[in-house]
C-alpha cells in the first residue's frame, strides 16, 4: 500500500461524480407539493373555494425554494442533494398548518409572519453558503465563539432586554421583536466546541492521569469542556428550560465522545445531567408537574388540558387523518408551537406524522453521512454535533407530544411557529450543505504528496488550490482516506 502511495501519478480523475443538483431540483417538486397541497386543500375543505390571488403564497414558496437551490447550485455544487428538499417540505407543511390554524382561530396572522421569517431564513441560508465556502475559517476562533455563545445564552437574564414569556426566561425583546438567543447560542457553541476539540481531541484522549480505567484529562484542557457544561447548567437553573438544557448536555456528551472515543465522557456527562435533572426535579415544581402529566395525564383534566387535547386530536386523526382543515387542532392550546406535531397527527394522521418523523430522520442521516465523508476533524465534529442535536430536539418535542417522554418546551424544527428557531435551523442546514459540498467534491487536479510515514507533518500550500477550495488536510484520520483514494487510482 505504501509503495503505491509513494508513486501515485498526478493525473486528474477522468470521471466527475454527479453533483446531485438535478436530483435536488427533482426532489424539490414533491417537497413543494406537500406544503402547497396542504394549503390548497385546507382552503377547499373549509370554504369550498380558493381565496383570490391564492397562488401568490405557493408562488412565493416556490421562488424561495428555487432561490435556495440556485445558491447551492452555484456555490456548493457537490452538496448533498437531499437536505434542501427535506427542509423545504418541512417548512411547507409547517406553513400550511399555521395558515390552517389561523383560519380556524380567525384574526391571527401567524402564517404570514412565519412566511416573512422564512424569507429571512432563506437569506441567512444563502449568506452562509455564499460567504462561508471554507467553513474552516471558523475553526480559528474557538475562544471568541465560546464567549459569544455564553453571552447569547445569558442575554435573556439581562435587565431591559430580557423578558419572561410563559414562565421561561429565554427571550429577549429588542424594538418590539422577541427572539430566543439560545437558538443562535446553540450554533455558536457547537462551532466553538468543534473547533476546540478538532485540534485537541488527541490530547484530551490521551494526556492526563490514569485512575483505574478512567483517564482524567489535564486541567487546562478541561476549561472549555467546563464552559460547555456550564452552558447547560445556566439554561437549566437560571432559565428553567429543561429541554434546551438537555440539548446542550447532549451536544456536549456526543461531541466529547466523537472527538476522544472515550466512553467515560458519556458516563461522566450522563451522570452530570442525571444529577442536575434529579436536583431540578426535586426543587422545581413545574418539572414534577411535567413528569406527572406525562405518566398520568387523565388524573387532572384541567392541568393537563393541552396534552390531553393533543392525544384526543391524534386519536381523532387515526391512520390517515381527518384531512387538511377538517379536524379541530385549534382545540389544542399552543397548537402552532409546541403541539404542531399533534395538529399534524390530527389532520394528516399517523401516516403523515410518520412521514414527518422520517423527513427528520433523513436530515439526520444525511448530516451524519456528511460527518463520515468530511475530510477534516472540524467538519466531522461540526456535522455530527448538529445532526445529533437535531435528532435529540426532534425526539424530545415529538416524543413529548406523543407521550414517549415528559414534555419539554422545545420548538419543532422548521415546522413550528417562531422566527429565531426557523432562521437558526436554516443556518444549520446551510452549514451542513457547505460541509457536505467540501466533503463530496472530487479532488481534481490534485493528489497530495503524502509520505505516510510522517503523517502529522504535511504542509499544503493552500494558494495552489484553485478558487479557495479546501484541500485535504492530513491528520491521523484523513490518512486512511488518502490511502483509499490512492488505491482507487
Amino acid at each position, binding site marked *: 500500500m505504501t509503495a503505491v502511495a509513494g508513486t501515485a501519478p498526478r493525473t486528474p480523475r477522468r470521471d466527475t461524480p454527479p453533483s446531485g443538483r438535478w436530483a435536488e431540483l427533482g426532489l424539490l417538486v414533491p417537497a413543494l407539493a406537500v406544503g402547497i397541497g396542504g394549503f390548497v386543500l385546507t382552503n377547499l375543505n373549509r370554504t369550498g373555494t380558493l381565496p383570490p390571488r391564492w397562488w401568490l403564497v405557493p408562488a412565493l414558496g416556490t421562488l424561495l425554494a428555487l432561490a435556495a437551490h440556485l445558491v447551492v447550485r452555484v456555490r456548493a455544487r457537490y452538496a448533498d442533494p437531499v437536505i434542501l428538499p427535506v427542509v423545504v417540505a418541512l417548512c411547507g407543511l409547517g406553513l400550511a398548518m399555521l395558515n390552517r390554524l389561523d383560519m380556524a382561530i380567525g384574526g391571527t396572522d401567524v402564517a404570514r409572519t412565519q412566511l416573512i421569517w422564512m424569507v429571512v431564513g432563506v437569506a441567512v441560508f444563502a449568506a452562509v453558503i455564499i460567504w462561508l465556502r471554507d467553513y474552516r475559517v471558523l475553526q480559528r476562533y474557538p475562544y471568541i465563539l465560546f464567549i459569544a455563545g455564553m453571552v447569547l445564552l445569558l442575554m435573556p437574564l439581562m435587565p431591559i432586554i430580557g423578558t419572561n414569556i410563559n414562565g421561561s426566561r429565554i427571550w429577549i425583546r429588542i424594538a418590539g421583536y422577541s427572539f430566543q438567543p439560545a437558538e443562535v447560542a446553540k450554533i455558536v457553541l457547537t462551532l466553538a466546541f468543534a473547533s476546540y476539540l478538532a485540534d485537541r481531541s488527541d490530547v484530551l484522549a490521551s494526556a492526563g492521569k490514569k485512575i483505574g480505567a478512567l483517564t482524567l484529562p489535564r486541567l487546562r484542557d478541561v476549561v472549555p469542556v467546563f464552559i460547555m457544561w456550564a452552558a447547560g447548567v445556566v439554561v437549566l437553573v437560571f432559565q428553567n428550560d429543561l429541554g434546551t438544557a438537555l440539548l446542550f448536555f447532549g451536544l456536549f456528551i456526543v461531541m466529547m465522545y466523537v*472527538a476522544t472515543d472515550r466512553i467515560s465522557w458519556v458516563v461522566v456527562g450522563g451522570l452530570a445531567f442525571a444529577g442536575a435533572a434529579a436536583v431540578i426535579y426535586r426543587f422545581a415544581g413545574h418539572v414534577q408537574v411535567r413528569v406527572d402529566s406525562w405518566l398520568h395525564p387523565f388524573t387532572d383534566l384541567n392541568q393537563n388540558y393541552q396534552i390531553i387535547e393533543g392525544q384526543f386530536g391524534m386519536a381523532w386523526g387515526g391512520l390517515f387523518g381527518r384531512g387538511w382543515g377538517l379536524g379541530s387542532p385549534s382545540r389544542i392550546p399552543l397548537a402552532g408551537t409546541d403541539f404542531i406535531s399533534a395538529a399534524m397527527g390530527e389532520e394528516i394522521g399517523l401516516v403523515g406524522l410518520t412521514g414527518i*418523523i422520517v423527513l427528520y430522520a433523513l436530515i439526520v442521516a444525511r448530516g451524519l453521512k456528511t460527518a463520515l465523508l468530511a475530510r477534516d476533524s472540524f467538519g466531522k465534529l461540526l456535522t455530527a454535533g448538529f445532526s445529533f442535536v437535531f435528532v435529540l430536539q426532534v425526539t424530545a418535542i415529538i416524543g413529548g407530544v406523543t407521550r414517549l417522554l415528559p414534555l419539554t418546551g422545545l420548538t419543532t424544527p422548521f415546522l413550528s411557529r417562531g422566527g429565531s428557531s426557523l432562521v437558526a435551523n436554516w443556518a444549520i442546514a446551510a452549514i451542513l450543505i457547505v460541509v457536505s459540498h467540501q466533503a463530496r467534491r472530487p479532488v481534481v487536479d490534485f493528489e497530495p504528496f503524502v509520505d505516510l510515514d510522517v503523517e502529522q507533518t504535511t504542509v499544503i500550500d493552500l494558494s495552489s488550490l484553485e478558487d479557495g477550495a479546501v484541500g485535504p488536510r492530513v491528520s491521523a484520520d484523513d490518512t486512511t482516506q488518502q490511502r483509499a483514494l490512492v488505491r482507487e487510482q
Partner: protein
Amino acid sequence: MNRTIRHVGVVAGILVFALLVNVTLSYLLRNNSLDNNPANQRVLQAQFAQPRGAILAGNTPIAQSVPGSGDFPYLRTYANGPMYAPVTGFYSYMYGRNKLEQAYNSALTGSSDPRVIQQLINSLTGQPGAVASLQTTINPAAQQAAWNALQGKQGAVVAIDYTTGAILAYVSTPSYDPAQLSSPDLDATQAAWKALNADPAAPMADRAGREIYPPGSTFKLVTAAAALEAGWTPDTMVDSPARLTLPGTNTQLTNDSNCGGDQISLQQALQVSCNTAFANVGLTIGQDAIAAQAARFGFGKAFGGDVNSAVSAFPTGLDPSQTALSAIGQYNVTASPLQMAVVAAAIANNGIVMQPYLVSQVVGADLNVISTHSPSSSGRAVSATTAAELQQMMQSVVANGTGKRAQVPGLTIGGKTGTAQSDNVRAPYAWFAGYAAEPHVAVCVFVANAGTNEDQTGGATAAPIFRQVVQALNG
C-alpha cells in the same frame, strides 16, 4: 473519528425508531380509549352531529335520537326518563355519558360495525358506520310496577331471570330525567347538573347496582349456605339464647322476636330470622367459610359486562365478635341490591350463578342482529342439594315466617327479609331478597327510607313491593 460517528448514528437511529414505535403503538393501543373518553369533545361533537342508535325496553324506545335544530342536528330524548335512568344513563354534550349510553357507545354511534371489511371501508372513506340499537332485557311491566311501588321512597328493585341472568327490572328512586342533561340549551344543562349533584336525596345515585349497603338479615342466606356446604342440614340444631354475649366483649346481641326456644333448627332460625342462632352458626363455621361462600355468590368483585356494578364486600381479619355480627349481615358487610338478587337467583337456579346482563341484542339499522348476548355462568355457588335445602327454607320463610307479605297466591315463593339497623339516627334499611319459581325470577327489594315515621322492616316494607313486582312479571 468515523467509528464514533457511526455510534452516534446508531443512537440517532434508536431515537427515531423509538418515536416511530411510540406513535404506532399509540395508534394501536390508545386510540380506542381516547375516542371513548367522555371528555373527548371532538368525538362528542361529531357524535352529536349524527343520529344515535335507540335503546329499547320491550318494543318501546326508552332512549332515541330525534331531529333537532341549531348546533345539534339530533336530540337525545328519553321516554319515561326517570324510571329508566339507571338503565340508560345520560348522554350529555357537557358531562359525557354513563351506563348503557357509555358501555355501548361505539355500537350506538356506529363505530363498531363487526363486519371488518365494512369497518375498513368506513375508516378509509371517513364515513360513519350504521348506528345500532340496543335491545335491553328490561320487562317494562315489571319496571313500571317496581317504579310505582317505590314512589315516595328511597330505594331500589332488581329483578333477574335466574335461569339466564337477564335483568328484568332495575329501578332506583328517587331518580332524574336524563333528558335534562342532553338538552341543547347548555346553560339549562349546566344548571340541571348542578342541581342534581347538590340534591341531598342524590337522584343520580344508582341504588340498585352502584351503591352498597349493610344487607342485614338477607345475608343470613349466605351464612346458611355456608353452613349447609360445611355439612349441616336444615335440621341441625343450634343454640338460640334470647341474649348472646359476643365473645371478648360486653355487648349483648338480642333477637327482634322470640326465636322459639333455646335451641332451634337451622331452618327455624332462618324462618324467624334468629340473630343469636346465626351468630352461633357463624362462630361455629368460622369467618373463612362465610367469606368463601360470599365470594362464590359474587362478593368481592364487580359484575362485569354491561352492568358494571359496585363491589359488595365481606370483611376480612375478623375477631370472634365481629364474625358473629358479620354472620347476620351487620358490622362491615356491604352488598348492593343487585348482589342480593344474585344470591337469591343462584339459590333458585339450583346453585348456578348466572352473569347478570342488561342488553340481549345489538341490532343494526337494517334490523339485522349484530350481536346476541348468550347467557353465561360465573360458576357454582352451592351444590344442587344445598340449593334445594335453601329453597325449602326460603319457602318456609314466606309461608310461615317473616316474609308472609311476599306471598302470591298460586306461586311458589321463597325469600328472606332483612332489617339493617346500623345506627340510631336513620330508619333501618328494609330488604327482601327472594324468588318466584314459576316466572323463574329472583327479586331484591331495598328501601332506605320509606318516607314515613313508622319503623320500616323487611317484612312490612320490602316484601309487599316484591309481591307487586312478581305479580307484574307473572301477568
